[in-house]
């Protein structure tokens, strides 16, 4: 509260200075920082750095400009800044004669601040708020029009009228069912589903379609993936070792379950932020807080404990705000947010909420809802791999003290594999990748980790504002809190947060999940809207601040957000509101002047995401495994990449082992093991999400290497052959098979010309395949890696362990008739075609 008393006003250089604070930090906050902003940064920091001087940071002051350092902390007399404001000799700042000179008390304050060590605390409690109303829209309360007749189209049509635009007519049936099915399930509709929909002439055929899709278990797999994009889900920790997070998969399944069950979003928020604090005996809750640890993180012998701990705190603070509030809170880590009303103090207050959060891997029994069917077999396979590695280690036992350097290197390698595999073994155990408030004795966590203090001796760590985000420069102490602008602009009072160990996150979660928090509902409905239309009502899903795109339809965004909270935070209710609108059902043809489809006069076609592409290929080939859930599976990936050696700190990772069984290998992409250091190259090339930074929106750029993956890649060729074999099974004549192929891939029959082209292709290629036998099945060769020893600088070779389980091969060309192989060529063209990869 003291800061309020010290508030100063600066008007045209005149400083009203109520009293000089004793504390140099407070001096900085209340006097120095405002004067820097008003008088100095125009030339030395914001936009230009005259004399190469940047006064925006303490670091910049210390570095100084052409004349040298601006400040010598503790010695104002030797500080150029102090000399300049005094107007000593040639250098006078601010420039422009006596009238521009700062008032004496302020000059004295600068001297005092420097003598006090020039602390750089960026708490802005005393700052002047001068944000433009148009930039504060997201912080303002929702406008809730109480007219039950309102709907999505009301708002869209109004804008169309304003802009004199005529909307495109409704899309045709086949287009609609394909659009809705891919939107809600991430898979193309089957020919039977298309047929049933087209036959249904009842007026509610379309609403029934939406209901069927929303009820499909495939829905959670599709929308869960969107959520995992935003939270950066991965099954490993990244960086040097990329250790497995063996139980993270339970969070992935939790997300899918939550979407399928239409869990109220406020509950979904609370569980992920504070599940363990809500009920430490609730398995689902302990799994849910895996959210907090989703980011990349590693601690090694080369890391400083305090630094890696801070890395986690910064990550969780920034991402919690980005994911739920659409705020770029991380910008306020080193300085007050440059564009939004978020002082650094708020950043550290929110960080203090997480300061008692410790990593935990508690025993959490498997739930009935979880798929445990592969645990036993998976464990047996992993144990056998481990046993073989152990045996290799034991082969050195009798001479371990007298090993030559290259033997030592080999031993080091197997020990590294043991260390990595030890984590993998844990994926079959009933544990959760979780957190606790304060350490819980007896909990361990994988890999090298921070020392967990004893519970009995534990006290909540003190949180201080870190100058420039640097742990070496702790400043003013802060208590746990939330983003203050929400109270200021929306009137939602901050929660009372206990200063004890537990309950901090619960309080934060309650504040975020409050219908009166204007950010939460807006951010979520905007995300949902974006995944349906390809762009949000506000363009930047993770940035609702000044620099993010302003909503094109602000009233619609508010109405939809209010609709969301009024309907029990039901995400499915939002889907219905959107998908039953005329706007969603429009055709893609557009002649009107609506660049970028800003006013939604038509439906903008989109390229499907990488996962949808892979899943669709598997689905039409008849190879998609319907099973889901459980530890991540390992898909067929490019063989060169699979067989390439990969670093693990000081050594080499075990080989990539695709799941030997097709039913695991060919699961939907969301169930594949998400390894930060090894992304399936086909997913990567089709603009897969970053596993390190929150992906608010997928890019869909077209690059040449996509053509390589899809047209030359072995996976697609294998699936094309499986597709051809499926056609052979499901249709008789060539004509019948061509028709089936088009219906499976495109959801429609071929026209006469397409039929003619396809049949000619089959004719021509069958002849070619008759005379050109396929190459024989390749032998599986042992994988020998040659690496340079870190110890000796010499090369040494070792053989990667083979998979103990026999590999269930894909259908090979030698087992297919020439005609089937010709159909595989047709299938390859279909899977590569624009109609297959775009949604209309």
């Amino acid at each position, binding site marked *: 509260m003291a800061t309020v008393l010290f508030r100063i006003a600066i008007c045209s250089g005149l400083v009203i200075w109520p009293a000089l604070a004793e504390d140099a930090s407070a001096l900085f906050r209340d006097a120095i920082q405002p004067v820097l902003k008003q008088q100095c940064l125009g030339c030395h920091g914001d936009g230009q750095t005259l004399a190469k001087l940047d006064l925006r940071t303490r670091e910049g002051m210390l*570095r100084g400009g052409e004349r040298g350092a601006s400040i010598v902390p503790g010695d104002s007399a030797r500080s150029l800044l102090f000399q300049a404001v005094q107007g000593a000799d040639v250098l006078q700042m601010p420039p422009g004669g006596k009238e521009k000179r700062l008032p004496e008390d302020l000059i004295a304050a600068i001297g005092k601040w420097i003598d006090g060590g020039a602390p750089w605390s960026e708490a802005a409690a005393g700052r002047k708020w001068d944000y433009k109303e148009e930039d504060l829209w997201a912080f303002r309360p929702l406008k809730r029009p109480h007219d039950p007749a309102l709907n999505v189209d009301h708002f869209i049509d109004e804008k169309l009228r304003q802009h004199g635009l005529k909307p495109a007519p409704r899309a045709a049936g086949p287009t609609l069912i394909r659009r809705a099915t891919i939107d809600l399930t991430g898979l193309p509709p089957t020919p039977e589903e298309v047929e049933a929909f087209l036959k249904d002439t009842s007026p509610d055929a379309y609403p029934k379609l939406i209901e069927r899709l929303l009820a499909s278990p495939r829905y959670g797999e599709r929308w869960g993936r969107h959520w995992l994009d935003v939270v950066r889900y991965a099954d490993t920790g*990244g*960086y*040097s070792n990329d250790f497995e997070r063996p139980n993270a998969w339970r969070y992935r399944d939790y997300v899918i379950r939550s979407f399928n069950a239409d869990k109220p979003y406020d509950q979904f928020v609370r569980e992920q932020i504070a599940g363990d604090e809500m009920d430490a005996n609730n398995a689902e809750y302990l799994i849910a807080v895996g959210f907090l640890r989703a980011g990349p993180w590693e601690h090694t*012998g*080369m*890391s400083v*404990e*305090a*630094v890696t701990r801070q890395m986690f705190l910064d990550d969780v603070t920034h991402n919690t705000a980005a994911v739920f509030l659409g705020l*770029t809170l991380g910008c306020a880590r080193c300085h007050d947010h440059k564009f939004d009303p978020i002082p650094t103090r708020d950043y550290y207050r929110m960080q203090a909420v997480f300061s008692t959060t410790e990593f935990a891997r508690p025993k959490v029994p498997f739930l009935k809802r979880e798929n445990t069917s592969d645990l036993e077999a998976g464990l047996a396979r992993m144990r056998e791999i481990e046993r073989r590695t152990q045996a290799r280690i034991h082969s050195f036992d009798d001479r371990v003290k007298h090993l030559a350097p290259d033997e030592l290197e080999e031993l080091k390698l197997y020990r590294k594999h043991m260390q990595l595999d030890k984590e993998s073994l844990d994926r079959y155990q009933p544990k959760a990748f979780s957190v606790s408030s304060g350490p819980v004795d007896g909990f361990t966590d994988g890999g090298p980790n921070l020392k967990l203090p004893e519970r009995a001796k534990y006290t909540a760590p003190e949180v201080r504002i870190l100058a420039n985000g640097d742990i*070496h420069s702790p400043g003013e102490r802060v208590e746990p809190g939330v983003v203050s602008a929400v109270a200021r602009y929306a009137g939602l009072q901050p929660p009372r947060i206990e200063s004890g160990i537990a309950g901090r996150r619960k309080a934060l979660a309650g504040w975020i999940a409050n219908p009166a928090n204007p950010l939460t509902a807006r951010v979520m409905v905007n995300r949902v809207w974006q995944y349906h239309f390809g762009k949000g009502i506000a363009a*930047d899903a*993770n*940035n609702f601040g*000044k620099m*993010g795109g302003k909503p094109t339809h602000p009233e619609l965004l508010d109405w939809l957000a209010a609709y969301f909270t009024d309907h029990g935070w039901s995400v499915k209710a939002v889907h219905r509101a959107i998908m039953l609108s005329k706007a969603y059902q429009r055709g*893609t043809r*557009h002649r009107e002047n609506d660049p970028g489809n800003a006013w939604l006069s038509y439906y903008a*076609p989109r*390229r499907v995401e990488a996962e949808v592409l892979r899943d669709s290929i598997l689905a039409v080939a008849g190879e998609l495994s319907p099973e889901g859930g459980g530890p991540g599976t390992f898909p067929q990936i*490019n063989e*060169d*990449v699979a067989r*390439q*050696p*990969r670093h693990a*700190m000081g050594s*080499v990772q075990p080989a990539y082992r695709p799941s030997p069984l097709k039913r695991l290998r060919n699961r939907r992409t969301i169930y594949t093991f998400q390894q930060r250091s*090894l992304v399936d190259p086909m997913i990567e090339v089709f603009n897969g999400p970053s596993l390190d*930074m929150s992906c608010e929106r997928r*890019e869909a*750029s*077209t*690059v*040449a*290497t996509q*053509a*390589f*993956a899809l*047209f*030359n*890649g072995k996976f697609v060729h294998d699936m094309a052959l499986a597709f051809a074999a499926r056609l052979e099974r499901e249709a008789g004549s060539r004509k019948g098979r061509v028709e089936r192929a088009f219906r499976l891939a495109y959801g429609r029959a071929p026209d006469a010309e*397409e039929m003619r*082209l*396809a049949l000619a*292709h089959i004719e021509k*290629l069958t002849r070619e395949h008759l005379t050109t036998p396929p190459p024989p099945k390749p032998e599986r060769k042992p994988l020998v890696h*040659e690496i*340079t020893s*870190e*110890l*000796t*600088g*010499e090369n040494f070779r070792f053989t990667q362990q083979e998979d103990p389980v026999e590999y269930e091969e894909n259908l090979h060309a030698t087992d297919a008739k020439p005609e089937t192989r010709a159909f595989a*060529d*047709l299938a390859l063209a279909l899977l590569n*075609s*624009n109609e297959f*990869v775009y949604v209309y």
Partner: protein
Amino acid sequence: MRNRYAKMAIASPSRREFLFHSGMGLGTVALSALLAQDEARGGVSQPKAPHHRAKARHCIFLLMEGGPSHIDTIDPKPKLETLHMTKFQKERTKFEANMNTGERYYVRSPFRFRRAGKLGIEINDLFESFAGVVDDVCFYRGLQAESVNHPTALYHLNCGNQFGGDPAMGAWVSYGLGTENQNLPSFIVLPDVAYPQGGSANWGNGFLPAHYQGTPLRAEGAPILDMAPPPGVGAARQQVNLDLLNQLNRRHSARHPYHEELAARIESYELAFRMQAEMPGVADIEKESDETKRMYGIGGPDKDADAIGRRCLLARKLVESGVRFVQVIAGGWDSHDYIDKAHGARIRAVDKPLAGLMKDLKRTGLLEETLVVWAGEFGRSPDNGIRRGGEVWGRDHNAAAMPVWLAGGGVKSGQIVGATDEVGLKATEAAHPIRDFHVTLLHLLGLDDSKLRYFHAGREKQFSQTGGELIRELLA
């Protein structure tokens, strides 16, 4: 030299020609849409004007992954001879990594040094060939990294941010300068067989459009993933399938005349197959003379030198073909133990390739227009915890001092800039953080870091993150 890419560009069909020749009959609407899209991509398929005049238009970044020791390569510390095996004195800070705790001892360099060039700069005696080119090199002893962890330090050096996910320097440079050869990626990476720690994020496009991402030409297997069809699929069958695909796509485009992206996607297949045709020629170093290959250490007894030499020679060929940014990665420098053997082998492996590259660039005139950078993610410590009875000395990680050299267009060569203290613990003169180095490298390529910005998620982003200052001493 300047006309070489121009010729190549003429030799390959222009966009317009290709569209007519490929019989797509897209019509003018789609064609203009395609050209408009190219415009929207920022003219990625053509060169763009730099911010200021600069000699260098290409960059070859030689990344020595693992953290080469400055003390044992290009910054000898005789003082360590007298301190050898005495207790290491260092101010302990509150925050120490486990690596740095425990008893530590100064370790002398096991290497001999030779004087090279007009200045008589001291470099490791094993740099036999490289010693012959040091007059064209600017040694920089002032650079300081911020992390002593491999992946974070690599991300920092490559992408400007320790946490990964931001665009790599090659992506920024491609974004800033465009490309000179439409048929090749503008940013190519030549990694070891094993990718560096942190993986492909080291050459990612981050938030920049995917066109700017680094394309690795792999050391083993197909140079570009899936560039060739699977075994048994010949060129003729591939062409027939491609023809069918084009026919299906053409009919589809006719049904969706307003969907502009379709033309770009059709074109991407043509570009892919032009790349498929051109890349083997560019990547084929067999046509180079034996003398050239020998110069790079190719075909010699040292297998690593052969492999690195091939990548360095390929780097020259790529630059010659108009590739904007080539990163060569040569790892294995993480010598915690046996530094005599480990660093010895590394230095022998890079000696000829580096010297060969410098000589080759110079004699072809490419050095004038190419910026060459040699650096690891950090340097090494003057000390070590005692290992295995003190017989297997090595050095740990050190971010405060590191070895760097630069050469080529715009660099003031034949000098040493900056200095480290007498034991090599930290840089003391011309000391600059990585961001200043980034600003300087961009400057040498005609780009101004503060102007080379990209608006992403509500923020103007730049390579240096928050701006930095030019290291003027490095500039000619």
